[in-house]
């Protein structure tokens, strides 16, 4: 296992560090700037009516005509830049093995070492969990440090931040589980990444359409974003057990199927 972890570190260390730095900076900037930008959001709503449903879709609640300090902090946690960076890391990481290894032909080298496929998959999963924790931690650190420079009324209490972080971590696990599954089923990394990306995009779209369309609302439970609602978490101050359990359930199922598929499938690099 140590050798496998060494290989993973050699492969992903620098990209993970860049993602950490990116999330740290982005979260810091958003924490500092969003309250100012969103203070005049009613003007944006008046000029561009489509913005409001978009923000409603991201927040999971109707912000009305003014965005409160709480909602502006909630918006921070659903900001597309944050989600894009986090998911880009996941897509990059979780599609590496086996799809990426097969795609570039290195699967022969890896799988012909005296390790079981279970060990390989577990080592990859450990790397995924650790890198996710580090990246989310860096994002959170950026937010907390920048909060110190924000007006006290605009600050998000640490407890609320941790509750949302817990919910976001569950989203991270669910998306990663899906990415692992698609990677385990595919010989082409691009195909695996493309499908997961499409699922995420459809999740966004479904959440957005659910604001106006009844049919979309009736199936919005299929969207991952339906289970990530920082605004409600911040407003209620309660940990979203139901949402988190749904996401963890999805993560556990997809991860387990990915492991089974990888364990049983033939690997062909030619």
């Amino acid at each position, binding site marked *: 296992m*140590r*050798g496998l972890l060494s290989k993973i570190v*050699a492969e992903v260390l620098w990209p993970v560090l860049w993602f950490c730095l990116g999330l740290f900076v982005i979260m810091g900037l958003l924490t500092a700037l969003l309250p100012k930008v969103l203070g005049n959001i009613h003007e944006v709503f008046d000029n561009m009516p489509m913005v409001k449903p978009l923000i409603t879709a991201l927040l999971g609640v109707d912000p009305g005509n003014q965005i409160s300090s709480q909602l502006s902090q909630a918006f921070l946690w659903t900001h597309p830049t944050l989600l894009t960076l986090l998911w880009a890391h996941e897509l990059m990481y979780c599609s590496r093995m086996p799809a990426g290894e097969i795609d570039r032909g290195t*699967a022969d*080298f890896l799988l012909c070492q005296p390790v079981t496929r279970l060990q390989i998959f577990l080592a990859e999963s450990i790397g995924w969990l650790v890198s996710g924790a580090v990246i989310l931690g860096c994002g959170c650190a950026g937010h907390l440090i920048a909060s110190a420079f924000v007006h006290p009324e605009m600050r998000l209490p640490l407890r609320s931040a941790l509750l949302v972080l817990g919910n976001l971590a569950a989203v991270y696990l669910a998306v990663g589980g899906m990415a692992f599954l698609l990677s385990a089923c595919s010989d082409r990394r691009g195909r695996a990444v493309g499908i997961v990306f499409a699922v995420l995009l459809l999740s966004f779209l479904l959440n957005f359409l659910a604001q106006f369309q009844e049919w979309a609302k009736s199936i919005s439970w299929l969207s991952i974003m339906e289970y990530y609602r920082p605004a409600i978490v911040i407003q209620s101050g309660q940990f979203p057990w139901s949402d988190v359990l749904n996401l963890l359930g999805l993560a556990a199922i997809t991860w387990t199927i990915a492991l089974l598929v990888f364990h049983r499938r033939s690997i*062909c690099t030619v």
Partner: protein
Amino acid sequence: MSMLETSGLTMSYGSRRGIQDVSLQIESGEIFGFLGPNGAGKSTTIRILMGLLRASAGHAHIFGLDCWEKGSVIRRDTGYVAGDVRLYPWLTLNRGLKILSQIHGRSLQSEGRQLAARFRLEPDLQVRQMSRGNRQKVALVLALAIRPQLLILDEPTSGLDPLMQDTLMVCLRELAAEGRTILFSSHTLSEVESLCDRIAMIRAGRIVEYDSLISLKAKAPRRIQIQLSPGQMAPADWPASVRVLWQPQHTTGQQATQQDLLSLPPGQLSQTCLLELRGSSGEFLSWAAGQRFADVSIGAPSLDILFRSCYAGDDEPRSGAVT
């Protein structure tokens, strides 16, 4: 117990052909040649042995263990170099040795350094900066450094210059002398001929020849070149043991290849017959003694001819093939 044994091994890639009914047995300390043209099924067989592919029928055992179920145990003592070597771009030989040392639970650095010196490899050069030949050498050094009981090499000389090919051959002979077993897959006959004790030829997914090198040579065809006397016509009836490849004054039925014709003396085509002899030469020699040929020369048994005859023609294995 055999070191490696397959029986009725079958695998297909959907509509694409894989292998069919491949049965092999390799004993400890043997250098076994696995010959076949590109796409014949060599790599598929090897991938099943390495636990990468799951056979749809038959079984494959190494050290008496099932290759699919106990792959990780088998690979503790099995070195493998893939046909088309692909390594991580960030990998250096030293880093690879470090990772493999951690995986194997023992230091491979010393052995690796010695091999790197033999193969003239820079241990800290990244794979992305290496030529194809050097990448091949890294894969070879990593496979040899573990001092495996069984070494499976899939076309290992591709990309290596002739000097490095020689170095590899010496290394393999040393390993065999220590009692280690080598499965050497290649589509180049000369490599296998110079190295192996026994060989199997695979064609269109089936084993078509499987014997010791000595036995195969014994049944390999020989070329006979006959120089006709001035004014002599080519005989009308040839012995049954020979096949006529070329005879003058015949405009049809010539079976000689361009390579065969090039082997004939320049300007002598009109006076030379070229035959292929299978089996013993006794019957032919008795018959030839009664003719008034100017000269008869019989070549040594050639595996190359056998090799080419196995692969020539259509895509299906020839009938009556040895399995």
